[in-house]
């Protein structure tokens, strides 16, 4: 991290400081939680917003991109809930248990929390913080500790989110769908924080959707801490579909136990500036993980995927596959780091990133990094970027398929290669429908 002192604060930094002073007593949780917030904010103030000279944020200069800090979102009123309902109607029909947050706050009447399966508990993060819940504090910020500035800022301001536990051996029959809707009339800031603990041998699938009602310039900072127990099987699919003006910064911090299966998928079509961070640490041997994603960007959208896969123990397999489709002036950034610790022998990790550029002005930046300290490992990365294959387009057109349709088929196939990694057929279909809709909107 960069310890450089900022003599002059940016307008956004000043606004954040004023906002913290004004709201900290009203934020959920006193005592230990309050101390956590104070400590986090001090660390944020020391660092300031990250900029291009901070290596981890080189391609996403938050200091320049975040011109101002929006006020914290209000508790949703009836009108906001009604607007949220309209947005919910546009979500893909996934058979799932919905937990809905409007402008960052859990809304029970839009959620489906009745009749929870045995072994499943779902609580409001705001309530758990307010109660100073000991179990929560034992995990909060501790699953994969980080000094990352987005997480630090989230800890200072964290509001609501989901606290989920799936008990040992429980297998959830249907996915849990966390839906974060920004429905407010005025642009606002939301700091969502969720904690999910999946105990030994449990099976769970978590879908997380972020959607915005309008093109409003919301600022979303969302953090999910996830603990996957030994022999558990967990899928997490995050769909970033915020409004066209939104700044969305998201962090996943996941620790995976032994002999587990973990599949992560990051799907991004929304937002003006998106930063998806995933810090995944392997804590137990014999685990197989897939960390995948796809971004479809147009206009002047910017989406940054920053991944750290930390093989801390031996004998784990990970596959990282990221695809981006870039039209107009869309820009994708991929920073992927695989760490293989000294004891992590027999690690098998392969990372691939592919960018498809549909215009002359699109841009893809790729920064793969391998840090390998063990000597008996298989580890590699590959990156490509290019346009659609003219020969394949001609082949399709020569069979009577019009140019736009031919392009769409090839783009779907390109994205499909990453989406295939999702085990749930309904979700695969839902995401591919999303891709088709994106292509149709492209005209």
């Amino acid at each position, binding site marked *: 991290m960069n310890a450089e002192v900022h003599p002059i604060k940016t307008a956004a930094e000043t606004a954040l400081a004023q906002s913290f002073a004004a709201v900290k007593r009203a934020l959920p949780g006193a005592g230990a939680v309050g101390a956590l917030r104070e400590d986090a904010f001090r660390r944020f103030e020391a660092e300031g917003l990250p900029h291009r000279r901070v290596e981890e944020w080189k391609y996403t200069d938050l200091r320049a991109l975040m011109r101002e800090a929006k006020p914290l979102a209000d508790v949703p009123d009836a009108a906001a809930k009604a607007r949220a309902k309209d947005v919910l109607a546009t979500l893909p029909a996934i058979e799932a248990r919905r937990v809905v947050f409007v402008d960052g706050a859990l809304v029970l009447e839009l959620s489906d929390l009745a009749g929870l399966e045995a072994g499943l508990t779902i609580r409001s993060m705001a309530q758990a913080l307010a109660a100073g819940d000991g179990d929560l504090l034992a995990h909060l910020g501790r699953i994969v500790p980080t000094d990352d500035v987005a997480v630090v800022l989230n800890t200072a301001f964290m509001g609501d989110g989901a606290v989920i536990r799936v008990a040992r051996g429980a297998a959830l029959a249907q996915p849990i769908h966390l839906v974060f809707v920004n429905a407010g009339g005025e642009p606002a800031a939301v700091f969502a924080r969720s904690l999910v603990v999946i105990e030994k041998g449990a099976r769970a699938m978590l879908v997380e959707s972020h959607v915005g009602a309008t093109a409003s310039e919301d600022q979303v900072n969302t953090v999910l801490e996830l603990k996957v127990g030994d022999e558990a099987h967990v899928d997490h699919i995050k769909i970033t579909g915020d409004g066209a003006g939104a700044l969305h910064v998201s962090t996943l911090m996941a620790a995976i136990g032994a002999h587990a299966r973990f599949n992560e998928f990051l799907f991004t079509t929304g937002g003006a500036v998106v930063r998806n961070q995933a810090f995944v640490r392997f804590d137990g041997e014999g685990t197989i993980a897939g960390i995948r994603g796809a971004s479809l960007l147009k206009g002047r959208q910017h989406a940054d995927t920053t991944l750290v896969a930390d093989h801390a123990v031996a004998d784990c397999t990970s596959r990282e596959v990221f695809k981006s489709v870039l039209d107009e002036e869309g820009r994708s950034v991929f920073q992927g780091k695989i760490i293989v610790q000294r004891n992590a022998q027999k690690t098998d990790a392969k990372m691939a990133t592919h960018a498809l550029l549909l215009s002359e002005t699109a841009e893809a930046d790729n920064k793969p990094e391998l840090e390998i300290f063990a000597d008996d490992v298989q580890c590699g990365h590959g990156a490509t970027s290019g346009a659609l294959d003219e020969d*394949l387009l001609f082949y399709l057109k020569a069979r*009577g398929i019009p*140019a736009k349709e031919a392009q769409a088929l090839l783009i779907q196939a390109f994205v499909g290669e990453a989406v295939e990694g999702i085990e749930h057929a309904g979700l695969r279909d839902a995401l591919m429908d999303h891709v088709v809709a994106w292509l149709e909107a492209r005209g």
Partner: protein
Amino acid sequence: MHLLEVKNLRVEVDGKKILNGLELSVSRGSVHALMGPNGSGKSTLAHVLAGKDDYVVTQGEVLLDGEDILALPPEERAAKGLFLAFQYPFEIPGVATMTFLRTALNAQRKKRGEDELSTPEFLKRVRAVAGKLGIEQEMLRRGVNVGFSGGEKKRNEILQMALLQPRLCVLDETDSGLDIDALKVVADGVNGLRSPERAFVVITHYQRLLNYIVPDVVHVLSRGRIVKTGDKQLALDLEATGYAQYQEEMA
């Protein structure tokens, strides 16, 4: 009126003249074989007919049913009934063969103002032609040509041809890379499509294919133009004498 008329066709690639005033007339119901040495312009003609855009037509006309198709994009030529069986069919990972066939068939039907085929009717047609060509259902679920052998790719081209029912079929060295059994399957597929309304231009380097797809007319192409036209005997003569004499004539 001929189904296909090529008039004084001159084509360049990267400034190099490949076709130099080619003339060709093909009537309905006929099979024309186009033979010639490597580099004589056979494949260029096939690609120009299909509408590939790396080729610059500097002069001439290509008439399908009397209509000049040179200004049309490839997909519109296909919808008008022109089909090119590729010498090297491409692999398209992630696009299932069934999706590809269905998209192509329905796009052509739509362009012609016909209704899209229902799923059962489409499947019935695909199964019927696949069966004749010995193409397994499993192969149709795979990505287009992905993991197919050379022979399977050629059979897949014929499958597309049989399904799309074009009026003018251009076969670009369909025999290349085929063993004799695969060659027979492909030839049977082509012969099964022969009809009074449909014509074939069979491009080949070797006479062998023409034992199985018997042509009505044989042309010899050299340096971008047709230098000799005859019946099937011409192909047999060529097998004996080679192409050297035609190349010298041009020199």
